[in-house]
C-alpha cells in the first residue's frame, strides 16, 4: 500500500514535467511566454472538490478532453479571461470558440503526451468539448464525467501569459488506469 502523500507527491512531479512540456507548446503556438505555477495533486471527497474548484460565482470558458486507453481521465483548461489568449493568437471574435478549443487541445494534448511518455503508456482523447458561462454549473459536468469512485484524485496547475495577467487553470482528473500506473511507480 502506497502512502497517500507519497502518491500525490509522485503525481505532482509527473504533472510538473507534463505542464512544462505543455507550456512550451502553448508558448510557441501563442508566440508569447507562458509562466507556470508548480502543480499540486489532491485526493478529496466530492464536497472538498467542490470547495476547491468552485470558489465563488464567476463566468469562465473551458475546454474539456475525455481521455481513454491506458492514459485515461478527464483534462480541463479554464480561462476566466480568454481575450488576451485570443489576442496573442490573433483570432478574430467570430472564431473565439474554435480558438479556445485549439488552445485547450494543444495544451492538454502535450500534457498527456508528456506524462504518457514518462509512464510508458498511451491513450487517446476525444475532440475538445467547450463551454462558457457560470463556473459552478459548468463544473457539475466536469465532476460528473470525472467521477470514478467515492473520491476524486486531481492535479491542478495555474499558468499565465508573460505579463502575469489572465491566469488559466489546468485541472486533470486521472482515470483508474492512469492512477494504477502512477501507483506502480511509487
Amino acid at each position, binding site marked *: 500500500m502506497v502512502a497517500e502523500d507519497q502518491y500525490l507527491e509522485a503525481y505532482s512531479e509527473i504533472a510538473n514535467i507534463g505542464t512544462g512540456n505543455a507550456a512550451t507548446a502553448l508558448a510557441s503556438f501563442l508566440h508569447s511566454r507562458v509562466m507556470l505555477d508548480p502543480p499540486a495533486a489532491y485526493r478529496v471527497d466530492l464536497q472538498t472538490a467542490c470547495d476547491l474548484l468552485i470558489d465563488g460565482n464567476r463566468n469562465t470558458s473551458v475546454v*474539456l478532453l475525455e481521455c481513454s486507453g491506458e492514459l485515461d481521465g478527464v483534462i480541463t483548461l479554464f480561462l476566466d479571461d480568454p481575450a488576451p489568449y485570443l489576442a496573442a493568437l490573433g483570432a478574430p471574435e467570430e472564431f473565439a470558440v474554435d480558438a479556445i478549443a485549439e488552445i485547450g487541445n494543444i495544451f492538454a494534448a502535450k500534457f498527456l503526451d508528456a506524462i504518457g511518455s514518462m509512464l510508458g503508456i498511451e491513450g487517446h482523447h476525444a475532440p475538445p468539448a467547450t463551454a462558457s*458561462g457560470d463556473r459552478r454549473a*459548468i463544473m457539475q*459536468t466536469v465532476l*460528473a464525467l470525472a467521477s470514478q*469512485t*467515492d473520491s476524486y484524485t486531481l492535479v491542478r496547475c495555474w499558468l499565465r501569459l508573460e505579463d502575469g495577467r489572465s491566469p488559466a487553470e489546468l485541472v486533470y482528473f486521472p482515470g483508474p488506469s492512469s492512477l494504477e500506473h502512477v501507483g506502480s511507480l511509487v
Partner: protein
Amino acid sequence: MARFVVSIGQTAVATDEGDVIEMIGLGSCAGIFIAAPGTIALAAHSLLAQPRNGEVLAQPGKYVETAVPFLLDRLLGAGVARARCKAWVVGGAQMFTFGANSDSANIGQRNTDLAVALLRQNGLRPDTSFVGGTSARRASLRFDTGEFASSAGGA
C-alpha cells in the same frame, strides 16, 4: 427559519416556518424538490443518475437513483400522504458543446429523466418546466407555502 443552499451531492430537509431551500448554479445536475407545504420540504442536488461499479455511497444525494428513495423515506417519516405533495425536477442542462455522437452530451438529460421516472413510479407528478437547455439555473422552494421558483443564471 433557515436558508438551506444545497450544494452538489447534498440533500436538505426543511421543517420550520420561514425555511427556504435553494440551489444555485444548477447545470447538468438534477435538482429534485418535494414539498408538503407547512409540513416538510425536501431537496437533493444530484450529480449523476447512477453510481458506477464499486463506489462506496457516502452521500445519497450524489446520485438520482439513491437520492429519490432517500427523500421519499423522509417524506414517509413525516407521515405525509404523497397525494398532498408537489414535486419539481430542475436542471439537466447541456453545458458543453461536445463532438458528434458523444455520449457525454446527454449526462444532464439522463439525470433529469431518471429523477422524473423514479418520482412518477412513486406516485408523484413532478413539474418539469425547468429542465434541459444549455445554461445555468437557480431554484428555490419555500417550506410554508410550497412556492417554487426557478430562473436562469447562477448568481
